[in-house]
């Protein structure tokens, strides 16, 4: 009887330590997690894509313009979002230059859109915040709705992704399950 209790206690203590260890790694070092949604197309697929995130970029440390980040949604702390940083503190950026270029708009509508408005609505990103938008500007709930994101909500930077719809090994070297790196998309022009 006594030894059964002891065995259970031992197993329980191992389980607690293992779970906490994984939790700490997930919080501070690295996480591999599923993503859903159309907002990061075509960088991340709408379903079945898994991302590798590094947590040393937590709280926006060393994050740069063009980085792909995972953050807590400001309007709902239980959910997390993947977005692209498109404005750093102090940057002067357009709120939504893509408005009026919606593909589903009829060509006749285009004349009605006040283009000057889109290309003149500037804001300055406040201190300690970043401006984030989804790579798919047509279907993304982002800074254009909830305003700049406090850096304290950033949980990590996405560095790579796997697609489990792809075969385990497609033939080319180092390409398992559609593995690909996700880099910084802010590049030099010319």
């Amino acid at each position, binding site marked *: 009887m006594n030894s059964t209790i002891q065995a259970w206690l031992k197993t329980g203590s191992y389980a607690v330590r293992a779970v906490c260890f994984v939790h700490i790694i997930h919080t501070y070092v690295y996480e591999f997690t599923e993503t859903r949604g*159309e907002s990061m*197309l*075509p960088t991340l697929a*709408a*379903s079945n894509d898994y991302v590798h995130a590094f947590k040393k970029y937590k709280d926006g440390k060393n994050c740069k*313009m*063009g980085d792909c980040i995972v953050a807590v949604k*400001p309007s709902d702390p239980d959910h997390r979002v993947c977005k*692209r940083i*498109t*404005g*750093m503190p*102090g*940057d*002067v*950026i*357009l*709120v939504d*230059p*893509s408005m*009026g*270029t*919606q*593909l*589903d708009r009829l060509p006749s509508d*285009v004349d009605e859109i006040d*283009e000057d408005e889109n*290309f*003149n*609505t*500037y*804001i*300055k*990103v*406040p201190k300690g*915040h970043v401006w984030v*938008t*989804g*790579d*798919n*500007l*047509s*279907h993304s709930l982002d800074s254009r709705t*909830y*305003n*700049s*994101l*406090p850096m304290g909500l950033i949980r990590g930077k996405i560095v790579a992704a796997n697609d489990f719809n792809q075969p385990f090994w497609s033939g080319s070297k180092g390409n398992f399950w559609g593995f690909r790196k996700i880099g910084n*998309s*802010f*590049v*030099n*022009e*010319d």
Partner: protein
Amino acid sequence: MAPPTPILTSEQVSRERERVQILKEKNKCELKSLTQHLCHAEAPGEYICVPFKRVFEKCLGHALEVTDADTNDIQGS
């Protein structure tokens, strides 16, 4: 929710542009771009994405967006 962020007046923007212009003459600026997309579903699970480029003038650490109607040639599609 971020602090209330005012939309910059055209006056403030043109002042910013002037500052960038001055720095540009001193070769302290870099022209950078960031390409995002406009995607829509053709069929369930199938998407068509059109690139949408945004252009920034980065001077001394701060960026000013200079995307305009010509950048992506929105009329000529």
